[in-house]
């Protein structure tokens, strides 16, 4: 594999890891907020 492809692969891996990590944190916080709202609504 040439250097250009290695660079493309590493960049893709970094970007993918960043996106998946940030999305997991964001959606976990959103779900937590929804669950808290539901719990408050039930009293």
């Amino acid at each position, binding site marked *: 594999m040439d250097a250009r492809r290695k660079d*493309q*692969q590493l*960049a893709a891996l970094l970007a993918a890891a960043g996106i998946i990590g940030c999305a997991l944190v964001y959606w976990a916080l959103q779900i937590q907020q929804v669950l808290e709202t539901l719990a408050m609504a039930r009293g």
Partner: protein
Amino acid sequence: MLPTFLNSWRRSIATLAVSGVALGFGFSAWRVNAWEALQPLFAWMETSWLGAIGKTWGGVFAVVEAMHLLAMAMLGGALLVSDGRLLGWLLRDVPVTLLLCRAHRVFVIGLVAALATGMFMACAVATKIYFLPVFWIKMLALAVGVLFTFAIKRPLLADGIEDLHPWVVRAVAVASLTVWFTVAASGRWIGFSG
């Protein structure tokens, strides 16, 4: 030595640099300053002729909203096909380069249509969405999705996937689905907010 290293890994370094700048911006006072600076633009958007049409004629807004949803369906369909193929879930008998090329064309048409109709809809409710955090999450996810698709995913997959590590291909497909799901879900959330 250093220039050769920088040149060999320029795409990876650029990815790290853009991520660092975005994170730095997100956690600094610049973000609040930029948000405040954009307020006159959103006020103007609502008074523009696009905003006036959207607010005055509910039927026009509804038709454009339907077109926006159709464009999102097109975009989502193209992503499901291309990322599903990359994950090895569907259409395994179709050559991956051919499928990715055709799906990308549909994706671009869907994206352009979604952006055009989305701008019209944003004008009609500009001062409302300006104060919704979920709107800014959607814009952030959209920017990340466009950057990821055109600067990372497309150049990586354009030369085929045979020489790529399978986990890199899978990670790219999952990241692509994740970021566009966030765009679509945040968009739906805007409808439920305010």
